[in-house]
């Protein structure tokens, strides 16, 4: 790998430029450092919040805890998808693809929840 130490010196005039344009995103390494630091801090906080919720005494059952923990997980996922995957500033086509995915996913989970309330005749309940 020693021949790769020099990063294509004659190929790009912007070899050591601090910023570059990536599609619609202007890339600046320093701003990415700051963004990543903020994202990691928030991930740290949300993970701690999920653990604290899990070990807290919120009522008798697990329903409220599960709902709260999953809500925090959604915040966490939004950060990763929105900022690290650049979904907050993507092209319309990608949003369209993901919109279909969301619809199918909601349908799948909807069927799952629906199925938990109805059992075929003859099902043995505990």
């Amino acid at each position: 790998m020693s021949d790769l130490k020099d990063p294509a010196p004659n190929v790009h005039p912007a070899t050591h430029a601090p910023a570059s344009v990536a599609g619609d995103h202007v890339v600046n390494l320093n701003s990415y450092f700051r963004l990543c630091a903020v994202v990691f801090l928030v991930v740290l906080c949300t993970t701690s919040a999920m653990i604290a919720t899990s070990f807290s005494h919120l009522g008798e059952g697990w329903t409220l805890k599960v709902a709260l923990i999953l809500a925090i997980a959604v915040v966490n996922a939004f950060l990763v998808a929105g900022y690290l995957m650049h979904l907050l500033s993507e092209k319309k086509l990608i949003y369209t693809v993901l919109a279909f995915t969301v619809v199918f996913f909601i349908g799948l989970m909807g069927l799952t929840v629906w199925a938990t309330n109805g059992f075929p005749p003859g099902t043995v309940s505990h």
Partner: protein
Amino acid sequence: MDIPYTIENRPDTGIYNAKLGIWLFLASEVMLFGGLFSAYVLLRVGAEPGMWPHGWLDVRLGTINTLLLALSAITTLLAWAACKVREFGKFKFFHACTILLALTFLGIKSYEYHDKWIHYEIALANGTFADGHLLEKSADFDLAKKTGTVTIHGRIVDDRRKLMDLRSPEAQSARLEEHTIPAGDIKKMENYGPKHNTFTAIYFTLTGLHALHILGGTLVITYLWGPGSRMWRRDPERFTNRIEVSGLFWHFVDLVWIFLFPVLYLT
């Protein structure tokens, strides 16, 4: 023959082909994991009351793995950003970090699997249950012939339900000791592998599939860090796009873990 639109955006889609391809692939992956999450929900709500395990997994290890994956997602993004600003040395550094973090994640996951593999539940002839980690099997141990002994580090309970909630005050205060059990006293002996119960089945299925994704992603990232990085010299923009595409996959793997961790470890 040149592959079209590996660098420049297609006029009709507005993005280069590989990026559209990875997003379509990720959409199908959402449905794959969605199906398994759906199975998890059905197994959980269908479990007999008091028989769904709580506290069986080590939250500390799960938390460490969560932070490792979050860090690796960040180093992946920084590796791509370094490519964009033509800082090849920084790219190499950040991607090396990603590979090391991914391998550490897999190492911890392997330790967790091993821990479950040597953890046994033993139904005894007197109706009680011994539960703990296997320390030793005598040389002549044979469950079918009822010869020899097995030694575990754990506890003995009179009701199997007491083994389900390890966060209960009783389980927390239980004293774990060495128990040597003759084979003649054992009715059934089974480790906490995938066939132990529906929880371990879905746990191994979900985390196993996720670990395979981590392994696959690590192989791709390692290739791009090593021999694949030769492309940087002749076509840095195309190489940068490859890093972006592999990074999108890696972020997806992180996203899946963001839900796996709370679902399996915290609820």
